[in-house]
């Protein structure tokens, strides 16, 4: 990761924190892998990430204490408000970092963006994100308190969704990231926590995870989860 991307990301987080909304957001996606270093506190853990996208998960219904125009908050850093696809999902794009907001999809789902007027943005709704909201941790990084999915939830979530990816690159990235985090959980003796989170999942999801892991020959992980 470039130094510029890292410092820009921290600046964005600092501004969200100052505006009083960071506490209500969950950093998901590859950036969580980076921030897990503050949770594991282990020298052997690789924080390398290959993406410049930072995704924020917004629990719904949104409960922000303040109304903040996120775009105005970061505009002077060089971010542009861009609209993605025919549905007009808002992305805040910069040459070094892209900010996107996501919400969990519930019920039958919809392909329309979910409006978050408190932040003057909208967000696509995606499946399985409620599972991440239910299992979070908070870490202290560079003077900021950042909410992340529990590493076990992160890895298990990736083990569900990698099969749904249409792009090979994203599919491979999901597996690589999930395995890296999972192996670190084992090295950090977090097996019991991981199993608790796995056992809390819907049986159908557990079955999907085990079958997905079998398809990539991760039999050792299956054994750990089944213990």
């Amino acid at each position, binding site marked *: 990761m470039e130094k510029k991307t890292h410092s820009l990301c921290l600046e964005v987080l600092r501004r969200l924190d100052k505006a009083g909304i960071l506490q209500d957001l969950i950093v998901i996606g590859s950036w969580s892998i980076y921030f897990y270093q503050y949770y594991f506190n282990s020298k052997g853990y690789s924080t390398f990430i290959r993406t410049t996208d930072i995704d924020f998960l917004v629990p719904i219904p949104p409960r922000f204490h303040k109304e903040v125009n996120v775009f105005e908050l970061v505009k*002077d850093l*060089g971010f542009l408000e861009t609209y993605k696809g025919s549905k007009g999902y808002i992305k805040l794009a910069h*040459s070094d970092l892209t900010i996107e907001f996501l919400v969990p999809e519930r019920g039958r789902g919809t392909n329309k963006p979910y409006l978050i007027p408190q932040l003057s943005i909208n967000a696509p709704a995606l499946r399985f994100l409620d599972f991440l909201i239910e299992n979070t941790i908070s870490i202290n990084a560079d003077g900021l308190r950042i909410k992340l999915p529990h590493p076990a939830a992160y890895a298990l979530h990736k083990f569900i969704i990698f099969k749904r990816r249409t792009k090979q690159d994203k599919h491979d990235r999901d597996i690589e990231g999930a395995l890296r985090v999972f192996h670190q959980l084992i090295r950090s003796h977090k097996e019991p926590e991981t199993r608790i989170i796995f056992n809390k999942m819907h049986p159908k999801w557990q079955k999907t995870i085990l079958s997905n892991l079998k398809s990539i020959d991760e039999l050792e992980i299956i054994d750990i989860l089944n213990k």
Partner: protein
Amino acid sequence: MGIIKDLLKEELENSIRIKNDYKEALKKSPGGSLIRKKIRGHKYYYLAYREGKKVKFVYKGKKLSKDCIEELKKSRHLRLKYKDLIHRLDKRIKYLRKALRGKEDA
């Protein structure tokens, strides 16, 4: 090798797209510098900008509100920022195109 190439391609596409977005934003945001001219003892504000070889002055008024001055300053700052980022993106695009032209090992 395929994964790395796909990553580079994705990065190149992203860089081109964001560069075009910055160019669009530059077109939309008013350029130029705010200057104050003193004519016969009176002060007048103008927005000065270059159009080809000529420098044009657009009259803005005798007095400008603080908000207006602040807005123009912000716009100028943003234009400079966008230009700098476009410059950096040009370098990145050049580098990525060069990397993608490289031959793969058999």
